[in-house]
């Protein structure tokens, strides 16, 4: 990392985030969309860890923990919703999610 420069983590995380955004834009399967959101979250996590290494400050690790927590909770509830929608409409198309009320 000393020779290569810290900026490479910035480029890597930006590229990872944009790949996740690309996935959200071009896919219709809700499960793939959830996975692309995970990709974007992981890009942010990696940048947190990289900066906490850079500044010798472990608060970034704590932020990563909390973001993992939120991601796990999100996936649990999201998958329950996906299974319900699939039972009713026999598809995991994101367009079916405008049928949700409440």
């Amino acid at each position, binding site marked *: *990392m000393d020779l290569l420069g810290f*900026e490479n983590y910035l480029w890597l995380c*930006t590229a990872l985030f944009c790949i996740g955004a690309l996935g959200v834009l071009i896919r219709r399967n809700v499960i793939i969309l959830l996975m692309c959101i*995970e990709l974007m979250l992981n890009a942010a996590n990696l940048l947190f860890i990289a900066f906490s290494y850079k500044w010798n400050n472990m608060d970034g690790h704590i932020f990563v923990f909390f973001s993992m927590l939120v991601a796990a909770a999100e996936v649990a509830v999201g998958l329950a919703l996906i299974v319900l929608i699939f039972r009713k409409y026999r598809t995991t198309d994101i367009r079916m999610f405008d049928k949700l009320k409440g």
Partner: protein
Amino acid sequence: MEINNFVFVLLSLITLLCAMGVVLVKNPIHSGLYLVLTMFSIAGHYVLLSAQFVAVVNVIVYAGAVMVLLLFVMMLLNLNKENEPLKSFKVKMLGALVSGMLLVSMVAMYKVKMTTQSMAGIPISKDFGYVKPLGNLLFTKYVFPFELSSILFLAAIVGAVFLGNRNKIEQ
């Protein structure tokens, strides 16, 4: 230090290629498996940044729990290439254009804002990334968000169980 650079380049290539695999592969199961690989390579990055505990937690929580849940649901719903909903070519091109522009604008922003002085950094301490300083931080400075996260998890559990049992409740 050269071995670190080599490992960094290798892990970055694996990460980006597998992330592209997640997005571009048609079969959802294959996407999930590519995401598992991405998570493992990101855990490798964490080890490289001497955040060993976070790396282990990443493997257990993401590559373990979350991905098993996702793959299990995909297999439960019997998703495959045939019933995969697809967008038209035009929409795909537009999406690629938008995310490419996002990439370019973010890189340009870093290039403008970043100076050698602002990226100087501090050498890391001896126990950086160990469990002890992490636990000290989590249970002193960040104890309130930690407690709040337990409420979040309770809400998630109740929500998931309620949604899963909805038919029984309505009957």
